[in-house]
Every structure is written in C-alpha cells, then in structure tokens.
C-alpha cells in the first residue's frame, strides 16, 4: 500500500514538473518593470527602477523616453498616445530626464537596476512635468527556424513588448485640484453608461480612485465599479455597467472621486487633492 502511494506521489510530482516545464518553455520572453509610476523632484533628482526577467532565457531590453498622457474622446474612451518627437507640450520632461543604462541584456531569472536622472532647465515654473520611460524587450534568442521541407517557406514573427511607465518631475509649490463639470447616466436595455467630464485645475496630475455605485430606487447597490484615475488636463471618463439578469431597475448612480485609497503609489508621493461626491439620476432611453 505504502509503495503504491509512493509511486502515485512520484508520478504526480513528475507530472507537475512536466507541466511547469512545458509552460516555461512555451513562454518566449517576459519583462517585469517596477514601479508603475516614478517620481522625481527638485529635491530628489535621481531615482531607480527595477527590471526583472522571470523567464529561463535572456531578454534584450532597450530603454528610451516618449511623451504620453491619458486623453479621451467625446465618448469617454481613454488612450495614451506615445510621441517620440515634435512634442511641444509645456509640461513635457522629454529631453531632460535620462536613464542609464539604455540597452541591457537581462540574463534568465535576473534583475537589473535602471537609474534615472533629471536635469531640468533653469527657472522651471512650479508644477509637474511628464515623460514616459519605455522598456522595449524581446527574447535575446532570435534564431529563425529553418524550413522543415526542401523549397518550403517558413516564418518567424518577433514578439516585441513595450512597457511605458509614467515619470513625473515636481518642482515648487504643488496643488492638486479636480473639477467635475458634468455627470451623465444613460440606460439602454441591460446597459448603463456613466460619463464623467472632469477638468484638472491644479498644477500636478490629479491621482485618485473613482468609485461608481449603481443603485435601485430603494438605495440597494446593484453594481459597483472602482478604478484608479489620473487626470492631467480635461478628461471624459466612461464607465459601463452590464445589468445582471433579473436585477431591479437602476435609479441613480453615486459617484465618488477621492485621492485616498491608491495602493500603487506610496503615500509620500501623493499630492492629495480634493474629494468629489455626486449623485446622478439614471435616464432610461
């Protein structure tokens, strides 16, 4: 009985190892970047980031800077468009924040420290300045597979990953202040769309947590959405709810925007802004 248990246990262990090996060999390349937002200031002009290669093969990483902040269209779709040159934004830190090294091969299961240095122009007005540090990575092993038949054609598509991390340089007196211009809520079929129109009135990006609660006429919560937001200038933000089958009719939406509750940003790096609360009635179409 014991022998049979041992055999079964070893068989399971071997099976597990085989599964893990098959998964890890399947992965071509991977790159971990930390942190997800970097802060520099007139008091701390240097900073460090970590990149890590969690796979079993080397990864080649190139590092450069772009400019891109979250922007929205009239429907509240948010995107970050990265620009490498011809950036005229007065809040751009492109060109005066540097990273070292700029090219590195990270061996399997190893980490690499990347150092950032800010050399801002003199007499920079108070506020926050932005750039995105981009980590472009791919497997360092890029041999092409030879065709398996004479006269055949074979293909290889190199999978390149780019991770763009926001870098913020702060100087002087800093103010975070957000204004909610308008809240619209529409209900169509089993969908409820919330559209928030916001404007940043401060001189730093407003970072906070947006909580939307969809309530019925008795004040009972039907659905809830909680997300991190960053508003740099004007931003329209859409939140979509899909009503579950048999749910009560939605009546109103409670909206709260708060600088509290961010777990991805150290408290010491938060420039705490105002808190906004509002209620909007659902308009059924």
């Amino acid at each position, binding site marked *: 009985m014991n022998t049979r248990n041992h055999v079964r246990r070893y068989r399971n262990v071997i099976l597990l190892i085989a599964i893990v090996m098959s998964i890890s060999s*399947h*992965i*071509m*390349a*991977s*790159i*971990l*970047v*930390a*942190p*997800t*937002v970097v802060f520099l200031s007139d008091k701390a002009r240097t900073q460090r980031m*970590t990149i890590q290669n*969690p*796979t079993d093969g080397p990864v080649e990483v190139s590092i450069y800077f772009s400019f*891109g902040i*979250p922007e929205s269209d009239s429907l509240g*779709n*948010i*995107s*970050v468009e*990265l620009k490498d040159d011809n950036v005229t934004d007065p809040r751009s830190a492109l060109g005066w924040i540097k990273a070292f090294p700029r090219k590195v091969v990270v061996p399997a299961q190893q980490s690499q420290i990347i150092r950032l240095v800010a050399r801002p122009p003199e007499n920079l007005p108070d506020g926050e300045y932005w750039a*995105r540090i981009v980590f*472009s*990575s*791919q*497997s360092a092993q890029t041999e*092409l*597979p*030879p*065709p*398996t*038949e004479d*006269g*055949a*054609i*074979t*293909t*290889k*598509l*190199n*999978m*390149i*990953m*780019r*991770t*763009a*991390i*926001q870098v913020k340089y702060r100087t002087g007196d800093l103010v975070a202040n957000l204004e909610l211009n308008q809240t619209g809520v529409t209900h169509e079929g089993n969908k409820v769309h919330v559209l928030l129109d916001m404007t940043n009135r401060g001189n730093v990006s407003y*970072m906070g947590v947006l909580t939307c609660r969809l309530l019925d006429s008795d004040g009972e919560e039907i659905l809830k959405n*909680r*997300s*991190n*937001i*960053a508003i740099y200038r004007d931003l329209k933000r*859409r939140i*979509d709810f899909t009503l579950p089958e048999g749910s009560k009719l939605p009546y109103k939406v409670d909206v709260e925007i708060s600088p509290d509750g961010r*777990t*991805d*940003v150290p408290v010491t790096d938060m420039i705490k802004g105002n808190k906004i609360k509002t209620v909007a009635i659902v308009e059924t179409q």
Partner: protein
Amino acid sequence: MYIGKQSHIQRRAIILLVVLLLLAVAPPTEAQEVAIGTATATVLSAVTVTATAALAFGNVYQGVTASIANNNASAAIFTISGQANAGVTLYFQLPEYLTLTTGGDRMNISFSATDASIDTTGANNPATMAGTKGWQDTDPRGLPSTATIGSAGTSVYLGGKVYPSAFQQAGSYSADIILTVSYNGT
C-alpha cells in the same frame, strides 16, 4: 573500532573548546549588532508583459495563403499582469510584410478588424476565449480603450494571414509584432 570512536570524541572536544574560546574573546558589541538587526523591504507596484506564444504559421507554400484565427492554438499570445482592474492602453504595431532574412524578397501579411481578442481572465488559451471574458474578435489596430488587467492577468490573442506569391522565394521570413502597454491611471 574503539580507537576510531575515541579519536572522534577527542576531536569533538577540541572543536567545543575552540568554540568556547572564540566566544570568550569575541567582543560583546557583535552580539548586540545581531540582536538589534532589522530587516526592511519596499513594496513596489509592478507590471509584467510576457510574449507567451508567437504567431506561428509553420511552413507555408508558394501561391497558398495561410491564415490563423485568434482562437487557434497557433495564435500569438501576449500576457499582461499587474494591479488588478488597472486601466491600460494596449497598442499594436503590426507589419505589412515579412522580409526574407537573406534579402531579396518579401511576403505580405495582413490583420483584419476581427483578428484580436482580449481575455481578462488571463487564461492564456485562445481556444477557450468567449465574449463574456472580455473583447472577442476585435480590431488589433483599435483595441478597446476600457481594457483592464484582470486579477489573474489579461491575455491578448492575435491571428493573421500571410500571402506567399506563386513565385515566392523559398527560405525564412521574419517581421516584428509590437505591443505597447501603458497604464491609464498613473
């Protein structure tokens, strides 16, 4: 046997004596340093992007187009993991052709408006993709702006089509598929 055991006891006694002597002459401050030692750790938020599988057409033949659907086992898979529910902008840069590595020829490749899917369950399995798991059969050149990182990660699946001509030169062809990931909420 008896002699061996005796020498073993003697050796242990000598080692014990040396240890006691070392303890006696060691400055007391070292013991204090050990006692007041502290460990610090900084927790950083992180994002991981993984090229889990390449878009693999295998061998293709002159004059025969080859296509791979985004729910096929040979579809490309990118995986993004990080803070759950964080909003991300995903942006593909896709090639229009593959180049013969020895030069001299190229082969067209296309991506249709339904060639991508975003699976917020992080399943990393194109075959199990369903509309309830995120965005199915969406445009790789205009990925949804409300994409988020799922609690187990988010997988992006990509299919495509290659067009070897009737006179396509045999050999190995390559091109780059680039996925850019940017956080919206930082």
